[in-house]
């Protein structure tokens, strides 16, 4: 396993776009939340912008911001890691040189898992630091109250990145894969959910579209506070529970990985 991760790392560390995307993530992740200092007067029932930074809600806000950054930066890294090699034809050359197709696929999968572990650790460290500096008289139990957010953050990263691999391996066109990843993630998924709810079946199941499931792992925290959900007739809770979202995300990850793996091991390269 380490051999395959090292191989991917050698490709990664020399590629400037990959480095830029990961640097942007590293810089943006801990800093965006401080933009919240600009907003002093929050609408009721929010107590004021300290809510962004103190335990336990820092886990939610930081997680929500992080989920967008994961979608844009890490998910795209996953797509690029596949389509770049399609464009350079090095995915064929890797096989010709001796990797089995399975190993090639595993190298990609192990790498996104490794990245997910790293960003999850980063998430935990950043949340703890921000919380410590903004919570008066905090205790260890304050700090880790709500720390189930940590495994959920890992699932978000795995979810978007396996979707990225899926788009890359299945479509295998650099422009088209990236376009599909973004458009599906930002528009089509929402459209499917709303259209299904309006015209097919108004049932809680429509919330299990892939992107919606992953978003509900770290929803916009306001939704938990206020019941001012958009004016639409839902016959169910707007958000999935954390358990539903977690299990749903695991199922989507497994499906994306399975389809991408099948596609890569059975088609001509």
């Amino acid at each position, binding site marked *: 396993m380490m*051999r395959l991760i*090292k*191989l991917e790392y*050698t*490709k990664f560390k*020399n*590629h*400037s776009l990959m480095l830029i995307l990961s640097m942007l993530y590293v810089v943006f992740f801990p800093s965006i939340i401080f933009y919240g200092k600009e907003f002093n007067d929050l609408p009721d029932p929010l107590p004021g912008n300290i809510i962004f930074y103190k335990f336990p809600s820092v886990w939610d806000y930081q997680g929500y911001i992080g989920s967008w950054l994961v979608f844009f930066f890490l998910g795209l890294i996953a797509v690029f890691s596949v389509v770049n090699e399609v464009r*350079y*034809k*090095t995915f*064929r*050359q*890797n*096989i*010709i*040189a*001796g*990797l*089995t*197709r399975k190993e090639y696929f595993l190298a990609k999968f192990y790498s996104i898992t490794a990245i997910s572990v790293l960003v999850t650790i980063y998430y935990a460290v950043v949340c703890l630091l921000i919380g410590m500096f903004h919570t008066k008289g905090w205790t260890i139990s304050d700090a880790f109250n709500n720390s189930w957010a940590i495994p959920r953050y890992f699932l978000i990263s795995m979810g978007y990145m396996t979707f990225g691999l899926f788009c890359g391996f299945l479509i295998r066109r650099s422009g088209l894969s990236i376009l599909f990843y973004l458009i599906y993630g930002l528009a089509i998924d929402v459209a499917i959910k709303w259209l299904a709810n309006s015209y097919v079946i108004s049932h809680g199941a429509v919330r299990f579209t892939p992107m919606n499931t992953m978003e509900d792992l770290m929803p916009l925290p306001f939704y938990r506070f206020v019941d001012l959900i958009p004016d639409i007739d839902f016959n169910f809770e707007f958000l999935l529970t954390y358990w539903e979202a977690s299990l749903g995300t695991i199922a989507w990850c497994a499906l994306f990985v399975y389809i991408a793996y099948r596609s890569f091991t*059975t*088609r*001509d*390269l």
Partner: protein
Amino acid sequence: MAVLEVVNLSKSYGRIKALDQLNLTIEAGNLYGILGPNGSGKTTTLGVILDILKPDSGSYTWFDNQYGDKARIKIGSILETPNFYPYMNAKQNLEIVRQIKQVDEVNFDELLELVNLAHRKRSRFRTYSLGMKQRLAIAATLIGEPEVLIFDEPTNGLDPQGIAEVRSILTRIAGMGKSVIMASHILDEVEKICSHVAIIKKGRLLATGPVGAILSSDITVEVAADDMERLQILLESKSFVNKITKEKKWLECLVDQEVNVSEFSSMLFREGVTPTHLVARKRRLEEEFLEITKNG
């Protein structure tokens, strides 16, 4: 030991049959040329045996299956164009290959020296000319002491200087005692480097064997005289002349191999014909190839 055994391989692209029940056996130490016109299935064959393409039916076995699905680690190949990471330099690209081949240590400088790229080892691959890319690809094939080398049209698209360089490197490699499989439609290239040939057309094997056996032992004699008509009538009457083709400036006759040039010329003098041009040569692979593929 059979390096490669291909059994009844078939592969279609839509309605086009690229490989049609192809069979092929390559023994260790052979320098094997796969010959065929463009579109005959050479690259498809190589693609299948390197697991880039999936065959519709049939099978292939590398090294009597002693390495399982790891066989490609023991094979150095170039398929079609040289494919490397454009943003990495020569050494970094070779490092990737080293990791894939699971080799502990490789002397990259020595390899790059062999293919005349030492002076550009720190330049990114994307800045290379086609000839340099091809030479880097050849260097990459040598990583990890491969037992077999596969070259697909190694001089395709190169300028004359590039062709000469690549050929001299290939000749050097062929001298290292490794098995080589080379696909080409340039017969001259195959004839110079290979010990064995397989000729394929429309995905079928037409002929295979040592170059000497494929080349018939008949001799071609070019002969001209002042009176060409008389010369032709005279030659047509001789039983050891098998075939006469009229070229622009001389007649080309296929004669039995026992006949040597001095016998041939003294025969002409005896008959009162003075040759103004007389050259005897072995048949070229090219002529044999055209003959075989014409009917295939």
